[in-house]
């Protein structure tokens, strides 16, 4: 179906873009790669008067790494760029795995990682790993910048804590503590290119006795926003890692999940898969942390 009519805006600076957001509050939508936004327009799920592309704003497509601050992924960095970036493959390979697990080749050539985050879908492929890894969203209103910890970013499906005049310009991922490992696990009913029925991101850090010093587990598609598996995290902290404790953590994660039944999977199946994937993610993260 043809798209509904809108006035198209393509500002060439951040200050201009934020001024437009301010001026047209309530009637304007941001577009990055457009792989969510154009579909929503086509379905008439949104009908903005103004569609503002941020693609002409210079400098937003960079991916950089510094040993003290970690990775910075710009708002316009494509899924494909994150999937194939040597910097990401070396410093945070699970972010590349998550980007690779997102959609199809064509969509990854168009869509951005930050668009996936800002779209705030509970099943988004790139969110669980970013949550596990303590990412922070850098928001700008054209004059000042602030960092929003990812734990405070999601308010509900499609809703974030960005202000109406703010643009997310980058996402920052701090470097891992020594003896840490990360994993991303996804299951979808149809194939690899399908939206996740359940996805899990986990970060595990070991102390010098090979006990779990810290752990973060993020579960996708089992609640209105990505959920932390708090019971599992508390249980595992300061405990020795074994097949038994990892299996127990998986069971506790399933208790924390509050999935619904929909076309992709039933509530019961999702709970079971949370258990399986959490244990699997922790096992893989533990393997990386040990080495």
């Amino acid at each position, binding site marked *: 179906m043809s798209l509904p009519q809108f006035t198209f805006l393509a500002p060439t600076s951040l200050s201009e873009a934020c001024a437009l957001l301010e001026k047209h509050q309530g009637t304007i939508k941001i577009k990055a790669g457009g792989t969510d936004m*154009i579909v929503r327009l086509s379905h008439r799920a949104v009908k903005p008067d103004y569609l503002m*592309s941020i693609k002409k704003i210079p400098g937003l497509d960079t991916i950089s790494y510094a040993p003290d601050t970690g990775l910075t992924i710009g708002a316009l960095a494509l899924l494909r760029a994150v999937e194939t970036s040597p910097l990401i493959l070396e410093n945070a390979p699970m972010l590349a795995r998550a980007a690779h697990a997102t959609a199809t080749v064509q969509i990854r050539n168009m869509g951005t990682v930050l668009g996936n985050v800002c779209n705030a879908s509970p099943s988004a492929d790139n969110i669980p790993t970013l949550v596990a890894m303590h990412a922070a969203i850098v928001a700008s209103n054209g004059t000042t910048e602030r960092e929003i910890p990812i734990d405070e970013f999601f308010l509900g499906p499609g809703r974030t804590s960005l202000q109406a005049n703010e643009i997310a310009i980058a996402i920052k991922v701090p470097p891992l503590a020594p003896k840490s490992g990360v994993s991303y696990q996804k299951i979808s009913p149809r194939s690899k290119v399908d939206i996740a029925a359940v996805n899990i991101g986990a970060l595990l850090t070991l102390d010098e006795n090979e006990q779990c010093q810290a752990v973060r587990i993020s579960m996708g598609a089992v609640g209105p926003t990505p959920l932390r598996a708090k019971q599992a995290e508390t249980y595992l902290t300061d405990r020795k890692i074994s097949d038994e404790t990892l299996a127990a953590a998986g069971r506790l994660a399933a208790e924390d999940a509050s999935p619904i039944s929909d076309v992709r999977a039933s509530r019961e199946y999702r709970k079971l898969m949370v258990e399986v994937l959490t244990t699997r993610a922790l096992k893989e993260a533990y393997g990386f942390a040990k080495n």
Partner: protein
Amino acid sequence: MKKELITLNINGDDHEIAVYPWRTLNEVLRDQLHLTGTKLGCGTGDCGACTVLLDGQSVSSCLTLAVEAQGQKITTIEGLALEAAANKDLEKCELDPIQESFIAKGAIQCGFCTPGMIMSTKFLLDHTPKPTEAEIRAGLSGNLCRCTGYNKIVDAIADAAEKISPTK
């Protein structure tokens, strides 16, 4: 609402056209420029029938705004043989080797998915000249075909890869 005058570079030619900002590249290619080789299937990014190359990257033309395709090199199925000719320093090629392989291997039935399949293959082979079968299947996972059952398409792509970058 006013149309915008834009210039689109398609298959090496500049086209100056007036478009509404809400028109997709797919609509402009097919309905305004009558380049109907590029198909429209789902219109929502799922099927790959509308795949074109923008500066060499495969994208869904149904999710691309025409106004945003300005300044990029657009390649459609109609332009593939021209590109193949340019690469070989020839005036003209009847078909790109990928197109020849699709015909030779019987990878086309109704043909609706074929332009998209071929454009995705072009992107795949430009980046992965010697793909494994798994890489072929992954590279084409954004293209749906309701006729062939995919196996002959996979054969055709392996055949094209061998023709373009022969194993010695």
